[in-house]
């Protein structure tokens, strides 16, 4: 039991379960999934479906954060990717392959640019990516001409809105991305290298690692995942919006990473934790909508949940609370003492 409590993923799981319970108490049919028009339908599917872009972006963000960096340009990259795809599709709706390639290329390029500034030039990551965060949105708007470009290409819409074997396509894509990333991190030495760089870059370099190449790669990867997220997002809403697509997504992604137990100081990271974190955020958003929290109060609710999650995740906070409880109920204190003596 104690072992279980010490596992870092337990607390995010507990949070998620609590949120779902809250939803259930409000709407007993919350977890029910039915089949509609040949696909699964229901609140959990919505949440997973909607969380897909966030999960994708957070995967890249996790690796970036693990190297002690940060990438605040992901929201802009999401917009650029969507805009790039849409502007190609607007010219010729049959060029779906081209559109996807263009979106991915845009994301790769953006990621490489960040990687260049951080790993090669040596700028501080937050500033390096701030540049793209500001300019990137401009680029996205330049591509869309400040308009919302509707997307009609069926095959493209399938990616973010279609279903494959009952399950939303975007969930497949997110699952594939998770699988690939996990494989890369666990089945190759990349995970080790990334953690080493995050913990002690100087020592890592002296151990013969080419840290700059790895850091560069990590930012590129982040750009790529953001681009995939951009494709999903634009496909899901059947349009590309240079200004609003992915707005503030970077904050949510960083939040997902930290809720999952990865430290912003770099080093150890947990991809599973990140996915859980993203699900928590999405479930929370959904919950505030479905239990009828007034819009003025959503932020307060979000703040409370975020604080609660992080407090119960913190070992010192739990110890503190336990101490307070013991002080308040001296009987309990005695019991723990005798337990300790045995």
């Amino acid at each position, binding site marked *: 039991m104690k072992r279980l409590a010490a596992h870092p993923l337990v607390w995010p799981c507990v949070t998620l379960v609590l949120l779902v319970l809250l939803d259930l108490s409000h709407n007993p049919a919350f977890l029910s999934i039915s089949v509609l028009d040949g696909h699964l339908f229901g609140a959990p599917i919505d949440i997973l479906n909607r969380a897909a872009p966030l999960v994708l972006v957070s995967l890249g963000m996790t690796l970036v954060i693990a190297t002690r960096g940060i990438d605040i340009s992901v929201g802009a990259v999401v917009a650029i990717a969507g805009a790039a795809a849409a502007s190609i599709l607007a010219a010729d709706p049959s060029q779906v392959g081209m559109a996807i390639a263009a979106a991915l290329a845009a994301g790769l390029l953006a990621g490489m640019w960040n990687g260049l500034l951080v790993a090669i*030039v040596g700028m501080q990551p*937050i500033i390096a990516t701030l540049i793209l965060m500001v300019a990137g*949105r401009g*680029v996205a*708007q330049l591509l869309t001409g400040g308009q919302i470009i509707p997307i009609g290409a069926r095959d493209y819409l399938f990616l973010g809105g279609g279903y494959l074997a009952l399950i939303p396509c975007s969930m497949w894509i997110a699952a594939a991305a998770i699988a690939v990333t996990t494989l890369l991190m666990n089945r190759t030495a990349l995970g080790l290298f990334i953690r080493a760089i995050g913990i002690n870059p100087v020592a890592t370099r002296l151990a013969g690692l080419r840290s700059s190449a790895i850091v560069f790669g990590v930012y590129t990867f982040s750009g790529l995942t953001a681009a995939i997220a951009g494709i999903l997002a634009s496909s899901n809403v059947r349009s590309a919006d240079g200004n609003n697509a992915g707005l503030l997504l970077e904050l949510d992604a960083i939040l997902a990473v930290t809720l999952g137990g990865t430290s912003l100081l770099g080093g150890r990271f947990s991809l599973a934790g990140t996915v859980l974190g993203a699900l928590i955020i999405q479930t929370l958003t959904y919950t505030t909508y479905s239990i009828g929290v007034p819009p003025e109060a959503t932020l307060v609710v979000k703040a409370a949940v975020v604080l609660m999650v992080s407090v119960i995740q913190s070992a010192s906070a739990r110890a503190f609370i336990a101490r307070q409880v013991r002080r308040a109920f001296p009987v309990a204190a005695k019991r723990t003492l005798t337990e300790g003596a045995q």
Partner: protein
Amino acid sequence: MNKLIDPRTLPIVVTIALFAALLAFGSVMYTGFFSLQVFAGLLIDNAFLLIVAIGMTFVIVSGGIDLSVGSVVALTTILCALFTERFHWPVWIILPLVLAFGALYGAAMGALIHFFRLQPFIVTLAGMFLARGACFLITTQSITISNPTFRALSAFHLDLGGASLTTGALVAIAVLAAAVFVAHYTRFGRNVYAIGGNERSAVLMGLPVARTKVGVYALSGFCSALGGVVFTLYVLSGYGLQGQGMELDAIAATVIGGTLLTGGVGYVVGTLFGVGILGTIQTLITFDGTLSSWWTRIVIGALLCAFCLLQRLIERHAGRRRSNGTMTGERAGAKRPRRAPLSTDVENNAAESLTPKEST
């Protein structure tokens, strides 16, 4: 000259030089740019940002980050407006009250961060949501302030001949001076640097880490509230959507001013120029007046990029010459500390006769 390229002051010297270059560029390019009024305007329009960024500088130097500043600014404007318009409290009660509130709010976040070992990012992000949410819970409307004292404070101008400074700008100057003093001439300030350098060492050196860390966030909360008051005077109203994204501006200004996000290194004065640079970029763009919305963003990004690139390259080049080249081939974060030059040599060994001297 030697002093100028001391590795510790180098970033700030470079920043100032580039700032001057930026101003010169504007003056050459646009008529009317080179005037006292424009420069004073730079300070007036960015007074609140400067105050907030100064608080942020302390937080970042201590190795943390504070995302709540923008929404605390908004909350302060709302509180000021609410107290004066709905409750008709006098200004001299409202101001200390909101400032104390800001400091407490920051201190509470600091306490969570330190005692529960939570990540500053998360705690202050929650603080940001909470303060913004509190604004909306109070009111979603904007409230105009008609209180005469507020109006008088807002209308006050100190004439400088050809230009004038507002109350806000004067407050910002005062805060800057106070912050420089705190950072360099008080134990609190020095402890902030020590903690940012190495928190564990600071604990082992017997420094009051808990007090300092909570204090840093309290200071930032206070600065945000003060920035909020200045903002209230700037617009004479309270509104919950104010100051969105200000945290990012403040962080950017701080970092551009040479403060390292990893903590322990930075100067308050640098932040002044960081704010100045962001402000100047914006002023340049309004003077230009031909850019579309998206080109505005792209140009801001490009200027920022050009600036930071130059900053990096000059620093690196000078740093290489000066610091014995230890930085070559080493990337950011992988920096080995620059070593002292030969000149500061060792007075060696117990026996005086063994002192090394150049033979030949």
